[in-house]
């Protein structure tokens, strides 16, 4: 088992390295001179040359890459041009809304999707099953920003049950902040619940068909304990997988949702950074998000080991 863990770990490190390389390439394929962009239209050629020197832009690409890697390893992601603060600080400030939003969304999505998925699988082919499958497909097809606009219009503007946008001010309590997150979390949750529902249903179907379940049934064990105990536990692995995948999807969805609802999260920061050509922030956000995803997946893999010792690759 130890060698498996080591293998996965080294694999993860390699992937992280490739991630860093990809980000390096993306940020540098932009046409134009980043120093000129940073200094703005009033910059003189000598100012630009000085900044290029300071940022090491005149060095050969490989040297720049080396410096870049060194900086990342020491946690230096550079400074935001627009915000005049280290990128890591900016990301840190924005982490809270995104974190709570993602958590809240997964909660809503799981609470909706898990029971419906299990029930659909159990009553396969019934009207309930068909209806829920169709609904799930519909939910998966909805553009999240469109849904957001409609929810805002109905629940915030017309009914006034929730704030229209924002995350509150400096003196808002945590509970009030969660109130701000309800509509965004529902928006995100609905779209990802579709995925969790389909997957739960599919996994449950497979497991329900399995031999040992049939054996248990034929042995005369009562229905409910059969399902809950055996089926669900075995379906847990793929469900965990999908929750992991959903986490990535949520970060994507969060970008759009945060922008529509004006939440000062990481997603919103990235969009603003793109608008303002704040390359250090774009670079830092890409690195952090991708790294988080890789780490989460690694953690889930390790979790599998705990749940099902039979898993070996």
């Amino acid at each position, binding site marked *: 088992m130890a060698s498996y863990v080591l293998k996965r770990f080294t694999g993860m490190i390699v992937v992280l390295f490739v991630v860093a390389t990809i980000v390096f390439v993306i940020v540098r394929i932009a046409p134009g001179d980043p120093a000129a962009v940073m200094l703005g*239209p009033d910059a003189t050629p000598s100012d630009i040359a000085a900044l290029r020197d300071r940022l090491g832009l005149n060095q050969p690409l490989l040297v720049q890459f080396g410096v870049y890697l060194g900086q990342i390893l020491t946690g230096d992601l550079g400074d935001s041009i*627009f915000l005049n603060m280290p990128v890591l600080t900016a990301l840190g*400030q924005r982490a809270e809304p995104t974190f709570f939003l993602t958590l809240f969304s997964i909660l809503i999505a799981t609470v909706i999707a898990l029971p419906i998925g299990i029930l659909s699988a159990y009553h396969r082919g019934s009207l309930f099953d068909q209806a829920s499958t169709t609904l799930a497909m519909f939910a998966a097809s909805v553009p999240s920003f469109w849904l957001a606009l409609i929810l805002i219009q109905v629940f915030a503007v017309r009914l006034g049950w929730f*704030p*229209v946008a*924002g995350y509150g001010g400096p003196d808002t309590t945590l509970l009030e902040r969660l109130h701000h997150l309800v509509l965004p979390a529902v928006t995100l949750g609905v779209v990802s619940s579709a995925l969790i529902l389909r997957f739960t249903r599919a996994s449950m179907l497979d497991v329900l068909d399995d031999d040992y379940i049939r054996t248990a049934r034929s042995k005369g064990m009562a229905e409910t304990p059969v399902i809950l105990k055996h089926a669900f536990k075995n379906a847990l692995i793929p469900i965990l997988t999908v929750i992991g995948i959903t986490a990535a999807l949520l970060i994507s969805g969060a970008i759009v949702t945060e922008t529509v609802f004006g939440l000062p999260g990481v997603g919103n920061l990235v969009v603003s950074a793109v*608008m*303002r*050509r704040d390359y250090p922030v774009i670079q830092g956000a890409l690195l952090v998000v991708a790294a988080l995803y890789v780490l989460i997946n690694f953690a889930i893999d390790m979790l599998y080991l705990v749940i099902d010792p039979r898993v070996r690759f």
Partner: protein
Amino acid sequence: MLKTLARSCLAATMAFGGLAASSMAVMAQDKPGGIITVATIGEPNTLDPMAATGDLLGMVTQHFLETLYTFDKEWNVTPLLAADMPEISDDGKIVTIVLREGIKFHNGKTMTSDDVVASLERWLKIASRGQLVADKVEKVEAVDINTVKISLSAPFGPLPALLAFNNSAAVILPKETLAEPLTEFIGTGPFMLKERRPDQYIQLVSFPDYKPLNGDADGFGGRREALLEEVRFVPVPDANTRVEGAVAGQYDFAELLPVESYDRLTGQTEPMLTESFGWPMFIMNTKQGVMTDQDMRKAVQSLQNSDDLMLAAFGEERFFKVDGAMYPEGYVWRNEAGVEAYNQGDVEQAESLAEKAGYDGEPIRILTSRQYEFHYKMAQVLDAYLKSAGLKSQLDVVDWATLVQRRADPALWDIFITHSPFLPDPALIAPLPASYPGWWSTPEKEKLLTALNTETDLEKRQAIWSDIQGLIYEQAPFYKVGDFAALAAKSPKVEGFEASPWPYFWNVSIKQ
């Protein structure tokens, strides 16, 4: 001797009584209370009004950073940090400004002429409006601790107006805080900066040691009092969200709303319409590209149907006026020179002018942004007009930051869209100097502009301005589209608010 003693006792009692009465009056005055949340159009990229321009920046910073002068209700220059109007020598080349005494900065320091001299020198060096004056300034020096002298190489009439403007503002900062870039934003204003979280909020709290001018408030001038405990600016780039937030009571004030949302502003808010707020303009690139040819510019000019353009951008006639004069009714600068060329909507004339210019099918690049929705809407209509006259056109829609960057490069655009408020002095109109993108510079115009800047007699300046307006219509460096009203939303709980192009929240209170 008894009489003298009695008289002095009486005098002392009266003095004491007077003192007691006035201090009681001070105590009876309410402590600043309440927080007001203001939804703005976006996040300023700096809080340094010398480093950038922009109405948003000016609006926010004017609360904590002040200039020597400002504007009163009639748009006359009036003293703010200066004690009085500047003394100008007979030859117009020496400008002496006496400062008010006992003005405190937010860090406790008292303002002196050293701070003023250092601030003005920085303004001349880095602020775009300061740079306009810089070549005419020979020296800025402190005469004594409360007096500053500016020596010019030639008279420059608009100087007081430039020192009063809150855009590219000559704010007075403590000498020690001056740096490139500015990191401490210490000023003299009735509010001070508490915290800025970019994209979240800018918190301004009342400054207890503020020394207001005596008398009443008069426009931006006169008495300024921080009646609020805190002013919180919240960037809300989506106009619709600003509207919805105002309606829901989340924002006490929301600026620059789409005028069509007027009827939606009910519930916890009410609409505030400022008529004759400003004018949109199409600026043409006279330096490089297809618009360098005057006939092409006149072709584009003759295509414009302002009735349609303004209707498309503003939705209803109560929100705009179709008027060719650069200043609306009621302004001393209004004149009708050249307005026959306004609002022609004449496709045939455009076609023949384009032919005369030898138009070869090169696409006309329209540069605009969606930060101001009405810009974008007009751009779309302009695009359609150009195509209707058989001209090729291309719409480049970018974000505002990119637009500001691009418009500085003459190779990248042919027409860009912007707007301006009605400025107190036509010399302040942005596209007039040759350094502004568009780069209008013809011998006739330079001669008139210099005359406008050096002449000090109002009547003579009005005549010069009338000539300039005529020249604008003749040479078509830009096209004024019309007059528009601005819509903001204000909570009924907010009291004492006076409408202006750059909303301010001193002398404003909120019912708790």
